[in-house]
């Protein structure tokens, strides 16, 4: 009996299955001290306890049965869950744009095996066509699976591989790139791609889902359709995040890769442009621009890829009573760059000053951003700010902390000359620093206020 036949089982439950001859995916009658149970033995979640055996009953329900009650297991059949989706050829036509979908992990589309409840991912064009057939009306789709990692495990290695692949696809003549990505760190990746891949002639669109694709209420299919349309048809040649505008199924927003942030742990409309307005609204068949200052699509296949990253960079989220040892430990561990998310206009407490001075003396680049997320670092307003600038802390304008972090890592891999680092950090490449914050760049409607309630009562959110 191999390992997969007892998938996820441990402890007493595993012993019982082994000694009584039970295996996963088998149709069985479990004879227990409380009567018989008939069903299919399912794999057990790795994190669940080692006392119970999971059975899918004929009614479709699952129950856990305490393994010490089981006296006998009679196998009446066996059928393994099928983890493969039959492919159907993706219809291609010369009139449609060629879009390349790069997969980084997570599931964009999936199907359920109802017998077992297993969720099986769909990724190849053929599989995706089966799941989201509307894609065939939008573009000719190519898919490349780069890696299968959860969003939180994306890091410099993946960013570099991804950037290089984007470069190759653009040079091969793709009309647009879609990147399937987990949502947690989508804004980190969108920011670093904005720096690593410059002057793209085509749209680079990141997309994911907040409700998994195995559920009927999933946002995945709509997101994918909007993203494919943007990649294939829009004239916005920038790195963008394409996710739900409101929580209703109405339209998506295209957020500039360096100004976007995940702002809610679970809402569909979690991505928001911070300190500016989004580039455009998009549906599966049209784009409505909001901004006009975006880079336009070109007909060439030229792109600049600078895929490098210095990993010894950190973000420090300041809190009252922070002690200097936090900064000192970064210095002692050889960090080359620090991004501080300071309070208010960009402040930290006095006890940190000696540590900041020490950092400067060691040649560590220290930049200040704001944990308020909205607004600029303004270190001239108070003495504290001026004192810190004396210590070498450089205000990073209105760059978001995560964006400053990836940009600093990207720069430090190219130069360690403090003046050059400073110059590059403060010269905007992809809208990460803006000269002006528009009046409607900060709008968090406050619930409860009569006019807001009126607005909410009138529009689907």
């Amino acid at each position, binding site marked *: 009996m191999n390992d997969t036949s007892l998938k996820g089982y441990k402890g007493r439950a595993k012993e019982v299955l082994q000694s009584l001859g039970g295996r996963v995916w088998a149709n069985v009658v479990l004879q227990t001290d409380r009567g018989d149970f008939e069903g299919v033995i399912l794999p057990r979640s790795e994190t669940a306890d080692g006392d119970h055996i999971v059975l899918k009953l004929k009614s479709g329900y699952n129950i856990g049965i305490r393994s010490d009650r089981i006296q006998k297991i009679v196998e009446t059949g066996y059928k393994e869950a099928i983890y493969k989706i039959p492919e159907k050829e993706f219809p291609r036509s010369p009139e449609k744009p060629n879009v390349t979908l790069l997969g980084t992990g997570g599931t964009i589309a999936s199907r359920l095996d109802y017998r077992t409840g297993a969720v099986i991912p769909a990724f190849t064009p053929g599989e995706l066509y089966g799941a989201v057939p509307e894609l065939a009306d939008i573009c000719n789709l190519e898919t490349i699976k780069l890696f299968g990692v959860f969003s939180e495990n994306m890091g410099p290695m993946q960013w570099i591989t991804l950037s290089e692949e984007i470069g190759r696809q653009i040079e091969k003549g793709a009309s647009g790139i879609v990147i399937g990505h987990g949502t947690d760190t989508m804004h980190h990746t969108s920011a670093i791609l904005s720096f690593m891949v410059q002057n793209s002639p085509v749209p680079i669109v990141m997309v994911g889902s907040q409700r998994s694709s195995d559920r*009927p209420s999933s946002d995945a299919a709509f997101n994918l359709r909007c993203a494919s349309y943007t990649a294939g048809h829009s004239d916005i040649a920038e790195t963008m995040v394409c996710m739900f505008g409101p929580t209703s*199924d109405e339209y998506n927003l295209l957020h500039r890769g360096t100004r976007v942030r995940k702002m809610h742990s679970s809402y569909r409309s979690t991505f928001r442009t911070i300190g500016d307005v989004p580039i455009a609204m998009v549906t599966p068949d049209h784009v409505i621009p909001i901004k006009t200052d975006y880079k336009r699509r070109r007909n060439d296949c030229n792109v600049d890829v600078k895929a490098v990253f210095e990993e010894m960079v950190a973000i420090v989220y300041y809190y009252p009573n922070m002690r200097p040892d936090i900064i000192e430990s970064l210095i002692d561990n050889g960090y080359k760059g620090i991004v501080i998310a300071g309070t208010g206009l960009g402040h930290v407490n006095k006890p940190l000053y000696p540590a900041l001075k020490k950092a400067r003396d060691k040649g560590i680049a220290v930049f200040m951003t704001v944990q308020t997320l909205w607004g600029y670092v303004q270190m001239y307003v108070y003495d504290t700010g001026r004192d810190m600038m004396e210590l070498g802390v450089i205000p990073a304008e209105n760059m978001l902390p995560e964006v400053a972090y990836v940009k600093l890592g990207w720069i430090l891999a190219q130069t360690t000359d403090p003046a050059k680092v400073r110059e590059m950090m403060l010269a905007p490449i992809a809208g990460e620093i803006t000269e002006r914050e528009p009046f409607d760049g900060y709008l968090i409607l406050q619930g409860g206020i009569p006019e807001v309630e009126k607005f909410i009562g009138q529009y689907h959110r």
Partner: protein
Amino acid sequence: MDFSNLNINDNALYESMGFICGLEIHQQLATQKKLFCHCPVGLTNRKYDAEILRHMRPTLSELGEYDGTALMEFKTKKEVIYRLYRDRTCTYEMDDTPPFLVNQQAIDYAIRIALLFNCRIVDEIHVIRKQYLDGSIPTGFQRTMIIGVDGWIPYKDRRIQITQINLEEEACREVSDIGHLIVFATDRLSTPLVEIITGSDMKNPAEAAEVCRLLGNSMKITGLVRRGIGTVRQDVNVSVAGGTRVEIKGVFKVGNIKHLTAVEALRQKGLLELKNKFNDRFGSNPKIEYKEENLTPQFSGSKDIIGRRLESDRPLKVLGLSLPDLADFVSHPLQPDWDFGSELSGRVRVIACIDSKPNLFFYSHRHRYDIPDTVWDNIRNKWQSRSNDDVVLICGPSADVTTAVNEIKIRIGELAIGVVNETRQDMKDGTTDFERILPGPDRMYPDTDHPPVKITDSRVENNRRYLSEPLWDRQKRWVAMGLSGELVNALSLSSYADILEPLAQDNKMPLKRAAYILVGMLTDLRRSGYDLRKADRERLKRIIESALIEKWPHKRLKAALIMLAHGDSNPQETKESFSPAAFDKFWEDAQNKFNSGTSNDKCGKFRRFITGRLIEQFPHHSEEVLTRIAQRLDCK
């Protein structure tokens, strides 16, 4: 089939048809909070605070094969609007937050109900997702879990199996469903409920209704469930020999079950007759030569119902479809005032979203519409229709008309099957109509958002201690006491039934009168605004006891009960405060108060007045109070 002399009480008839019926009772639990979030349970009649719009998309393999066309068709179906209420819903109901850990109070209540019905409690609860694409749940699935299996209740001389008891979240309330737009209120969503599933053990319509009532009442008297309109709904599965399981969803009143199951059995019988006729006429591989024609120009500008409909803002199409050699099928009765043509209408209403009434116009039914005969004759002449050829006219948005034509052909093809495996809805007029095709085995898969919940033996035993005597045992005793069937039924539902038991220990007690007071008088009083359900049980019992022993007149008992209901009797009363001196003082004060009034009545009125006052003041000594009043006053 002749429905004009429908007899739903002819048990032998239904049993001879091989009638079997199973029940699924959905009963909301009386928890404070919802099942997977911390919102308070309860409906609201306030205007909604916000709305969101969603679509439901079948996940892959929902439709069996990877049929892109089928998916595309589905996509065009419905826009779903959810109404949100600040005081009743949070982001969980919006499907914008994963579930919180399941409400433990709800699990305990469900365990108690499962124990009441003699179920085995599962060792480990697994939350499962059961897919619903009708939009009634924003996630597209209902979270549900088995609590107990393999139970039973005694009925007549046998046992009715309780195959499964589930704990699950309630769906939304439907506000409206017009064309391609369906609107739901989310206040009810996620209210905890138990689903009781019986075996197909009921052999005739009367049994179905009786068992349903027994199960429902058994739960009601536990105090664990919510009461009132809409807190309980039953799905009824019916089949006859040669037929197949048809589920009637959401039967509104238990009282309708007998009628609806009888009608459904006869509908299945009718469909089986049509099956034979269809197969005889069209053979095993039916090729029906339908004719179709766009008749929009003929009807635009006409004064009849179709012409008037065409004046809508949206562009509509009128299509004529011939139904060759099928006129006798169309008008074959299947339910009261309901024939196979109505069956086709139901399909078209649900699948093609054409829901103006009537949505199909049959030549066979032409007397029902104001379409002139000449119009029909023109069409039929052109098509050279024979006498048993029917014509149906369909009016709606072009895409929907195409879907409708397709669906009509599908349904006619299904005549060869006989009874179609489907769910039907209670139309509240004694008939049922198509709701949806049963999606094969239920679409269920594990809820990865929620860990399994282990149920220990000690938790089960703790819950067992809260169980009161099951209703069927009480009923047996009441019958033994000599109470009539009617009184037993009424007592089964009464929340005062527990008062009867101690009274029965005194064999001189007039039990029938006691039962009448409990079920009749207390209910009347509640309807007039005097609710005694929250009154002190002990005092209520003593008042009734005194009334029975001393043979109080009705009015006097009523007065005492009203006072108790008001809850304004003196809670400070103790043995000490009921001293002769205190009694005299109170009497005197009452007399002065009475005399200062304008009434010119004398002893009788005073007696009523003082009785009320005294019982209010000395509620624990009502018997003695009454004796003393009798001593002091000699008026009758």
